[in-house]
């Protein structure tokens, strides 16, 4: 049995899905060079570069709102929030856009995103 810590498991998951689908992008605060606040994806920058691991400004609401627009077109994004405390910050976009868009437009537009905290 292989013993792995959570960070490594998550990193492997990210790696696996990004190898499989080149359109998957991770976006969030310090996800680029820093590799996330817990260093979960710090090894991925070498393989995928800053085009797939995009650093964003310190405003969670903007990150999630922007991601909604991107995924509406068809890209699949992983949004990483630094801490779970910031989840309250994104509630407007999350509840009023991410969750409801599919229902509002009769299933014509889906929001394919993964929120990682």
């Amino acid at each position, binding site marked *: 049995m292989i013993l792995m810590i959570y960070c490594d498991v998550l990193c492997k998951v990210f790696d696996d899905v990004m190898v499989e689908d080149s359109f998957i992008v991770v976006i969030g605060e310090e996800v680029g060079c820093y590799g996330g606040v817990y260093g979960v994806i710090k090894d991925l920058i070498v393989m995928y570069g800053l085009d797939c691991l995009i650093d964003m400004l310190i405003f969670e609401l903007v990150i999630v*709102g922007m991601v909604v*627009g991107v995924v509406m*077109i*068809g890209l699949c994004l992983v949004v990483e929030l630094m801490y779970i405390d910031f989840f309250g910050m994104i509630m407007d976009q999350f509840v009023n856009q991410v969750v409801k868009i*599919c229902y*509002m437009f009769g299933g014509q537009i889906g929001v394919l995103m993964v929120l990682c905290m």
Partner: protein
Amino acid sequence: MCCIWIFEECVGEFFVCGQLVGLMLYLLIGEELSVVGVFVVMQLQDMFIMYYCGYGIFLVCGVDFNWMMVEIVGKEIGYCYGKGGFMYIVDMVLGYFGVNVIVGGGILVVVGVGFFSKMFKQNLVLIVFFGDGVMQQGIFYESMNMVVLWGFFVFFCCINNQYGMGMCIDQVICNIVFDECVKVFGLNGIVVNGLDVEEVEVVVDWLICEVCVGKFGFFSIEVYCFFGYVWMDKSFYCVEVEEIEGCKKDFVFFVCDKFVKVGFFSEVELMDFDQMIMCEMDVMIDFVVQFIVLLFFFMFCDVYVFGELELEFVCICIDCVLVRDDV
């Protein structure tokens, strides 16, 4: 423009007859006519998003008004299969990312679309329409900041009817000169009188050219909303003088008058044109009435991925609980 006006009146008629859901209907008669000037300049691949409930823009971009009315009255074969109603309509094929009635709530979506466009080098021009109620919201300024910083081909269009619901704009924002508010972000800001559609066209053409060379744009169209902000309200928020002045901003009259003076059309021809639209609308009403309304038990269809469990209706849950208690 006549078509938009008459179409909205038909929506109002459906509402009065109890064919629409809800107790309030937001019609924008007289507001969106100048938007025709925007779409003359836009190209086929360009996209747009709206943050207020507007029918005119949707009609101008080439949608079949028969099918649009089918959706508005909630028929099951409408654009959103009757689930969107008059509030939420979307058509991705036309580059129309839908109406979203949370005022300014989702304006960041356009930043996201711009991000996608830049990432895949599609060079789409994106237009976001919103009402003057957005102008004092932080999320709008955040969006402008991102657009300029990252260089997305986006420009902002404010349809300024002077009121956010029943609240006059000068009571909620300290600087009502909107073009000044956006210039601090480095955008080209212009205020246009919406009475003249040709003026709107010229301004938009210039703004889009500027967007393509990296100077992003904002423009505000000053308009007047006829018949109140909620269909046939009492306009208690509006003084009489203001209403009289507002009614002088009749776009259709202005354009028709211009056509007659220039000699494009005679008055008789314009009246015939009006009659033709009225006939088309009558046909539309007959077309709409023949379809059945979305049935309650199909509410969750087309919402979830095929194979996933659908939500159980509350009434069914309650029935189950009551039956269990009886047993």
